[in-house]
């Protein structure tokens, strides 16, 4: 195990380990891209990356800073548009999608539209982009987010992206191809969702983080697993790949 790693690198490694060999993965730039590339270079060589812009099974020689950059095209297996990529998502063909947002609630619903009133927002964000489609269509989703009280809220101001809605079978009843969020990786710990209630709970704490810290930074009384673990640490090889092969210029892994 590596003793030298940042929290961003830990989050990336945890997300990468969630990808199984052969998975079809909808990715964006940033940590999800690094997680996918890391998975492909270690335990999941047969996984396929898809960008919602239309690039399928990409092999870029430089790190793309946008999901639709020109460097994604040469070497890709297939290039189309939103129809081709998100069509596959809508059909339920993708195993994993990555999500983020300004707010998340206890059922994994995400907000990337507004803080405040929808018609008169205090803050207006980007909107859904492909997030809503990814949450509806991908079999499982992985959410990577900073852990603060302003983000982990009791109720999001606007549901952009459906998680488990109001819990229990409220999501199942709507008939999505995708089953919902599987994992939330923050800078404090790893959260999953209870199988019955669909409520978020803390599965593991990152080294240096405490239950108190998690509770202080969550705006609801978040459940803690009976068998709370410590998050599995990255290996020396995983860190080496991230630092020396995937992001040597530290475009995404900016933490020291």
């Amino acid at each position, binding site marked *: 195990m590596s003793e030298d790693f940042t929290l961003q690198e830990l989050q990336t490694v945890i997300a990468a380990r969630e990808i199984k060999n052969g998975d079809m993965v909808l990715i964006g730039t940033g940590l999800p891209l690094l997680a996918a590339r890391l998975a492909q270079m270690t335990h999941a060589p047969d996984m396929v990356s898809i960008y919602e812009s239309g690039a399928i099974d990409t092999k870029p020689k430089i790190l793309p800073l946008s999901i639709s950059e020109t460097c994604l*095209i040469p070497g890709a297996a297939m290039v*189309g548009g939103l129809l081709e990529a998100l069509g596959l998502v809508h059909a339920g063909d993708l195993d994993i999608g990555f999500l983020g947002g300004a707010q998340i609630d206890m059922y994994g619903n995400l907000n990337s539209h507004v803080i405040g009133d929808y018609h008169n927002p205090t803050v207006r964000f980007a909107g859904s982009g492909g997030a*809503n489609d990814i949450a509806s269509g991908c079999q499982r989703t992985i959410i990577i987010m900073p852990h603060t009280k302003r983000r982990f809220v009791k109720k999001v101001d606007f549901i952009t992206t459906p998680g488990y809605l109001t819990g229990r079978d409220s999501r199942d009843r709507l008939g999505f191809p995708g089953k919902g969020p599987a994992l939330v990786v923050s800078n404090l710990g790893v959260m999953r969702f209870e199988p019955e209630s669909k409520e978020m709970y803390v599965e593991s704490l990152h080294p240096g983080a405490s239950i108190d810290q998690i509770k202080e930074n969550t705006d609801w009384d978040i459940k803690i697993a009976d068998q709370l673990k410590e998050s599995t640490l990255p290996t020396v090889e995983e860190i080496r790949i991230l630092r020396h092969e995937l992001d040597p210029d530290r475009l995404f892994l900016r933490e020291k």
Partner: protein
Amino acid sequence: MTAKEAVSRFIQDGQTVTVGGFWHAISYALTHEIIRQGKKHLTICAAGFNEQADQMIGAGCVDRVVTSYLWLEVFGPTYAFRRAMEKGIPHKIEIEDYSNFSMTMRFMAGALGIPYIPLNSLKGSDMMNYSAWMGDNKVKLVEDPFGSGVQHALVPALKPDVGYLHAQRADEEGNVQLWGTLGDSPWSVRACKKIIVSVEEIVSREDIGKDPNRTVIPAYKVAAVVKEPYGAHPKGTQGYYREDREFLFDYVKRTKTEEGWKEFMDEWVYGVKDRTEYIEKFIAKYGYKKHLDLKAESMQSGSVNYGY
């Protein structure tokens, strides 16, 4: 035709306009011309918008936006858009929020003459419960009439008056060839009644005919073809030049304040009369080497045999 003439003749105040491209294939040449000509009361439509919308909104050209996304990804916020939404600067705008796929489906329905398309996207989200101006006609939840028991979100066709995009090449008739990521174009422009396009090169009809699978828009829909090399800068055009990442980071930094945004616009939009002057200014400011550094490497596709 020049960009000035094409925009003057084919884009009118009050129209619904598709702005083609998805980070790639966006015509900033035509966008800046729309702004310079002071077009007003536009409803602009695209699955994903970046600073082309930010600039049109800040300039007061836009009343309404139909979209899934308006931001600059990891580069940062579109501040003029935020000022309009949060503070009503320069005036209030309305935005009808969809998702990337549901926007693409709205355009596809429009292009195909289908009145609506049923989807799984949007269900369970607040996009079903909130509307800016479309009200009940934004999206409807309807049970599958073929008896599966599943409810789907029905999105209505979107058929804008005019659409524009940037592409690598077209012939003079208007057969447009585009490669690289297509985003929601060509559906978003095919759904329009009229299309104008800016291209890196105008080629012959014979050249088009050698690779007809590459054509994304057939000529009968295209009202104007404008030759505008570097028409997509600061974004890229596959095979010609890549994105200017520094320019984009700089845009975000400069436009955080209203004054900064106005300075940027005076420098790059209002302070140049056309795209040629824009490029000359770019070279004068950043140097010829920087201009050349953006040029694409040669990665030829090889050719395929269309013989019979």
